[in-house]
């Protein structure tokens, strides 16, 4: 022991240390490249929101903040945005309510027809959007309902429900049922248990599902294109104007949505962390 403790301190040669560092951090270096790839078009969109390019935003013509000061400057863009937001909020509300109900039924009860319900939830996710859009449009045509605002909302609710069910169900499955048993043991009846224990614990899942539903609805193009008729939405506006050049105001809106979503998620995390008792 004594001899060991007095021995010179063994150290590794520097090149061994460097190669070890790379070995350990290779996957992190890879992740940096991965994120760069994900964010290049986002960054491009953001940079070109400052382009003094007029109607067509193809080449860099100079820096301006005018697009940000007047995001509705391009014709139609804000009407389209307004429609997208309205449709998104309505679709989110309905799909979250309907989907949460199904999620609780599947996640909390054993009932006849449970596996066929699971299949019915899975099928819309396994059906390509174009089939969903086309089939719904055929139905509206049969009943002579004109495509437009409400058909679009219905279409969005339809494809968002499954995603809400899956998200909320996962949260319910991760709950410890003993918490509910404890609540009942402490004199809470079924309703109070649900309101005071189950719902607060599932709430983050429901919030996440709602955020997901809104982003799916807001960003949807294919199904919307089938069912919205002449109604303009933001993705439709972008698609249609792509051929003759997208006005930089669209980049302003796209970038704003990005930052808004980041803020919502970060604030949500912060509030969630603060609520956790430490």
């Amino acid at each position: 022991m004594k001899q060991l403790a007095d021995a010179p301190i063994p150290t590794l040669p520097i090149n061994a240390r460097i190669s070890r560092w790379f070995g350990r951090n290779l996957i992190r270096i890879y992740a940096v490249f991965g994120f760069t790839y994900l964010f290049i078009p986002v960054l491009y969109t953001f940079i070109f929101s400052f382009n003094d390019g007029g109607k067509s935003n193809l080449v860099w013509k100079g820096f301006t903040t005018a697009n940000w000061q007047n995001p509705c400057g391009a014709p139609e863009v804000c009407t389209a945005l307004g429609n997208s937001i309205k449709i998104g909020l309505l679709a989110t509300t309905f799909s979250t309510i309907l989907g949460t109900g199904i999620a609780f039924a599947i996640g909390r009860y054993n009932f006849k027809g449970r596996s066929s319900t699971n299949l019915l939830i899975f099928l819309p996710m396994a059906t390509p959007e174009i089939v969903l859009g086309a089939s719904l449009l055929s139905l509206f045509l049969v009943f002579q309902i004109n495509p437009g605002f409400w058909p679009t909302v219905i279409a969005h609710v339809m494809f968002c429900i499954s995603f809400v069910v899956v998200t909320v169900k996962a949260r319910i499955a991760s709950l410890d049922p003993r918490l509910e048993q404890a609540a009942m043991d402490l004199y809470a009846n079924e309703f109070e248990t649900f309101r005071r224990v189950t719902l607060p614990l599932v709430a983050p899942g429901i919030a996440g599902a709602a955020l997901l539903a809104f982003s799916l609805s807001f960003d949807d193009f294919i199904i919307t294109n089938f069912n919205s008729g002449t109604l303009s939405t933001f993705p439709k506006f972008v698609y249609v104007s792509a051929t003759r050049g997208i006005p930089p105001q669209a980049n302003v809106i796209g970038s704003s949505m990005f930052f808004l979503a980041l803020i919502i998620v970060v604030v949500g995390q912060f509030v969630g962390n603060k609520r956790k008792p430490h």
Partner: protein
Amino acid sequence: MADASTSAKGDLRLTRITKSFGDFTAVDDLSLVIPEGSFFALLGPSGCGKTTTLRIIAGLEEPTVGSIHIGAVDITTKKSYQRPINTVFQNYALFPHLTIYENVAFGLRRRGIKDVKEAVDKVLNLVELPHLAQRKPTQLSGGQQQRIALARAIVNRPALLLLDEPLGALDLKLRRQMQIELKWIQTEVGLTFVHVTHDQEEAMTMADTIAVMNEGKIEQMGSPADLYDNPETAFVANFLGQSNLIKGTVEGTDGDSLVVNVFSQRIKIAKSRSHAKDNSVLAGIRPEKIRIHPEGTPATGNVLTGGVIADVSYIGVSTQYQVEMPWKQELMVFEQNDDGVPPLNKGDAVVLSWESIFTFALAGDEDASAGSEVMPEDLDE
């Protein structure tokens, strides 16, 4: 302890290992030899660096500086899969997607051994669970998983078996039973076991040699009896069992003993058990070594008078007293209930005595409470 030049073939040798995580030094210039075939325990509180040391030996963590040898072979730069070392992980880390049989066969197959059946069956018999071979880990109880984790490691006949808090997740009764079985298996297979634990009882039951670790360093190393009877630091005295530590001053010698003045009473301490650096000492005595008498009873050996019983707890096998001494320190006394005398009462004036050979002495500048307020390790960390 053996040193580098006299190391036997399979001894594990750590030379001046330091491991830092940023500003935090988990292991601080640690040197250690673990002889081949021994059952060695690294004992210490949470965060003392014992698990980091184990992970460095296993190759799961790289030391910042220092080297590791098995016999004459330097394994410092070897990856964990290149070392002849296997680990029984805390919470076992069984592969959830493989059967028990495939879990146990995993290491053999990786080493290119074609016919694994005989070895796997043999080790499953050793841990007495051959009937569970085709189950998945989640279908097993905690005690069964623990044995499979052990079987999965020892089937490889490693030069060294590492056990990371292997019994921590088991209940007390099962833990006792497994302690005995582990010790038996170690004797049976004759491997070197290195066992990390925060549970002093577990370490003392199983290990031949215990190293007590604190703040990245080894405080003391020795046999369980050595550590218990002759602790060198206040940390060891308090972490292994309980100790009464009383301030005193060395006044002179009497043959092989030191004469120590404790608050104007004189006691003797064997020189071989003194770890004091100067005249200032902490005199130490284990609570169960002290005898308690009503005031006025003649007593032999080391005697302290003037105590008053502050608290009595009757716990069946023994009675525990808190005795307040004239210098306002409370001493603990554990008295076996084997003499038919009814326990003394709170408020009684008493005399304390013990055989002077049981006394040990620590350096007087030590913190008398070191190691006594350490919380048991949080096993889920």
